[in-house]
């Protein structure tokens, strides 16, 4: 909240300091990229700092591919995969943990992402185990996996920030599975069957759209052996997720929860990550208030990432279209005043070209946020996987930095006019205030 308020105040008319020179370039480490005949992409960034490595395996079925009847199936299927026995009766997760590593899943808007981090020499075997589990998730693990997801989903329902985020998605992503709570609803979860799980797991099996991204101390031979289990996947492309109809009117929706103070999220449409307007939107995010990164609200093995007191901006750019939200917590200050600041800030963004100095500062913040989002091997594997799946390929990483650095005041005004309108306002009120 503080960050947000401070930045919007700046936007509303603060004294600007002198413009700094444009930032020097920093380059991401060189990456290799191999496309198997069936379309699976295997990409790697090698380091020789320590004998550990991280892998992110993206399969092309995620939240958007669910429907109203099976909401929650993406998480349940991923949980079954990690519970599937593969190594002497040990599950994928247990095999990774026993070796000092970790295996986890995250359900993204259009993909399910499995991550494994471990000693580098153990990675090929663990990835082979994962591939086996992906191909044949163990039906006997279904009930336990569903129970895990159900508990995590219930926990989300008590998190006001998650509730507000869910409400905004419900309006803005109608017609796709991304409109439902990420862990599903208890009603849909209890109706799921093993057959639903197997059907969803079958939708992982597309060569085109599957990306294996590796970061760490791996030798070329190890990369080859990691690719091998995926070479037999069918050479076909995943069907595109259902299209979202653009929201052209304002909405205000209200829910009541057991919270002490009101919560509020204002959501707008936003460019998705491979749009030409993406770098400009990152600069707008810096102007309106830096918040968490794109995974701040993700749902995965450990439930949801979002802290219950989340405030500030959140840019979900993995979905198509993306969305941009600002969260307010009644305990952090005067919501009405903060909303007025947001309104004034957006009016200014849309109404006039901002001074070069202010845009230069925002570019620096956006670039800083971009670089600072990649500190661990796991971060590097995720970013590399995203880039490899982009139209630019692995060059996307450096290209995005350059594109952020060249955003102009005119770009900011144009993108603000295009996207920052027709907002959805989600209000979460204490139970007492409505009854």
């Amino acid at each position: 909240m503080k960050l947000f308020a401070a930045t919007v105040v700046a936007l509303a008319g603060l004294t600007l300091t002198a413009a700094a020179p444009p930032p020097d370039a920093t380059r991401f480490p060189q990456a290799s990229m191999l496309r198997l005949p069936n379309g699976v992409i295997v990409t790697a960034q090698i380091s020789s700092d320590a004998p550990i490595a991280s892998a992110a395996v993206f399969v092309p079925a995620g939240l958007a591919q669910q429907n109203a009847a099976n909401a929650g199936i993406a998480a349940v299927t991923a949980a079954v995969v990690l519970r599937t026995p593969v190594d002497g009766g040990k599950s994928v997760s247990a095999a990774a943990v026993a070796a000092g590593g970790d295996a986890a899943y995250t359900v993204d808007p259009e993909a399910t992402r499995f991550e494994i981090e471990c000693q580098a020499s153990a990675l090929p075997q663990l990835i082979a185990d994962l591939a086996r589990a992906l191909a044949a998730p163990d039906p006997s693990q279904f009930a336990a996996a569903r129970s895990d997801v159900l508990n995590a989903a219930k926990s989300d329902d008590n998190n006001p920030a998650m509730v507000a985020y869910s409400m905004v998605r419900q309006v803005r992503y109608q017609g796709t599975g991304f409109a439902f709570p990420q862990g599903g609803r208890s009603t849909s979860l209890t109706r799921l069957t093993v057959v639903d799980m197997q059907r969803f797991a079958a939708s992982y099996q597309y060569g085109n759209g599957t990306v294996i991204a590796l970061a760490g101390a791996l030798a070329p031979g190890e990369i080859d052996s990691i690719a091998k289990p995926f070479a037999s996947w069918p050479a076909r492309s995943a069907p595109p997720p259902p299209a979202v109809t653009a929201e052209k009117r304002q909405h205000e929706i209200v829910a009541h929860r057991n919270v002490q103070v009101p919560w509020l999220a204002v959501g707008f449409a936003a460019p998705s990550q491979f749009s030409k307007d993406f770098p400009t939107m990152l600069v707008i995010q810096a102007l309106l208030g830096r918040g968490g990164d794109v995974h701040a609200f993700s749902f995965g093995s450990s439930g949801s990432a979002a802290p219950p007191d989340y405030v500030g901006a959140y840019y979900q750019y993995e979905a198509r279209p993306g969305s941009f939200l600002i969260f307010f917590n009644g305990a952090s200050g005067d919501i009405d005043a903060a909303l007025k600041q947001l309104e004034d800030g957006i009016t200014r963004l849309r109404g006039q070209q901002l001074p070069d100095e202010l845009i230069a500062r925002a570019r620096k913040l956006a670039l800083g946020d971009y670089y600072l989002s990649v500190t661990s091997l796991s971060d590097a594997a995720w970013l590399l996987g995203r880039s490899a799946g982009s139209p630019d390929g692995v060059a996307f990483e450096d290209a995005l930095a350059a594109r952020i650095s060249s955003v102009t005041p005119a770009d900011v005004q144009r993108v603000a006019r295009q996207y920052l309108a027709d907002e959805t306002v989600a209000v979460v009120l204490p139970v007492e205030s409505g009854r």
Partner: protein
Amino acid sequence: MIIPRGAIAALALGIACVAGAGRAASAAAPAAAQKLAPGESVLPDGLTMAVRRATLSPTAALEVWIVSPADGYGTSTPGIARLTALSVVATKVNGQSLRDIVHDNGGQLMISVFPSSTEISVLAPGNAATPLAQALLARVIHPAIDDAGFRDAKLRLAEQQAVASTDPDVLLRDGIFNQLFTNGPFHASTYGGPVILKGLGLADAQAFATAAYVPANEIVVAVGGGLDEAALGAQIAQAAPGATQGNVMPVSARAQGQNPPLNAGFADTGGVAVGWAGPAVSDERMSTAMDFLSDYLTRPDYGVVAKAIANDDPRAEFNGQFITLRDTGIFYMTVAAGKRSADATIAAITDAIAPVLRGPLPRGEFDRALAAFRVHTLRDTQTPEELADNYGWYFAQGAPAYAPAATDMTLSGDYYNQAAALTPDIVYEAAKTYLGVKPVIATVAPRPTTPATTSMLVPGGRP
């Protein structure tokens, strides 16, 4: 010991060096004749520096660690180190504070205060590493504090005190240290309290900076993906001030005998902590064995105590670790927000650690756990920030070459050599010696619920 970022952030509370049983200890200027880690060097004025190009990250961790007592050099003044660090980063020179400069360059500034050291760090985007290193060195190696910066710091510290005073983990850890030491920087909270804060003035912070921020007490660490090591080294050397006599760390005496459980106050939730005194860092064999035990017992989702607590009560928040310190390490565990009573929680912890006290681990289990321990340690020291923290921490404990971060692909270095030499018998010896004694105990109680109204006319209102 590895200091995960979470621990450092939460820790705020601290750790550090202490005396052996029944004796008082003092830390001399840390740079004196220490075995350094590869990549570290000491400049003529006593300033130590470590520069390492590492990781795939397009960021750089730039840190200055100042070995100094959190409660000051004379009369114990808890909070003075934190207040000084906050003042240094808030004071404007040529219209900009260090905080402003870091923010404007897209970086992040962090301050962590431990009982015997202060860390001021910048996480810099790679493109801004050079100007941010320059700013950090200028402002911290040559500290200046003015009235406006001091007032800003005082407000921030008051806010931090308020937050810390409700955090069960902070209170419990403070309680354990308070139990294990009778005086000195390890006895008191690094936050201090509102009464002392109110009485502190600009001159106090300036005097502390003059005494503590001297080259012999400091290490500058830079770790990052795209660093020009030679240029950065030259930049640090150029910024180094003249030699100044370092001050001696005040004594923290170990408590004798067994104290009754300490009630550490009220927090957002109730909780209990147990703590044991461990070996000095100079006993690298035992310290490494304690790290192994810490991993085996307390690592989240893996350690046997962590899992035992979670299995019985998924809502309970468990934390634990061995903290490597110059003179006496500390092994502690905290459980907050659980449904069980303090006594039942302590009994559950006692049951869970019993197998390591009964005898050496079976060879197969030990070998598996040792391999996992090594991988955990590598994973916990992988980001520029984690690596830099690790160099800084072990410098502050007077054992820079023993830092786990000081290794390579072949796992060379003192730490991994010690890990490779561990045996089930050595680990059992460490467990028996240090965890086989009765722990000190601290508890916190949930804060009483305040009625929403004081009206006598509303049900539930205060009469």
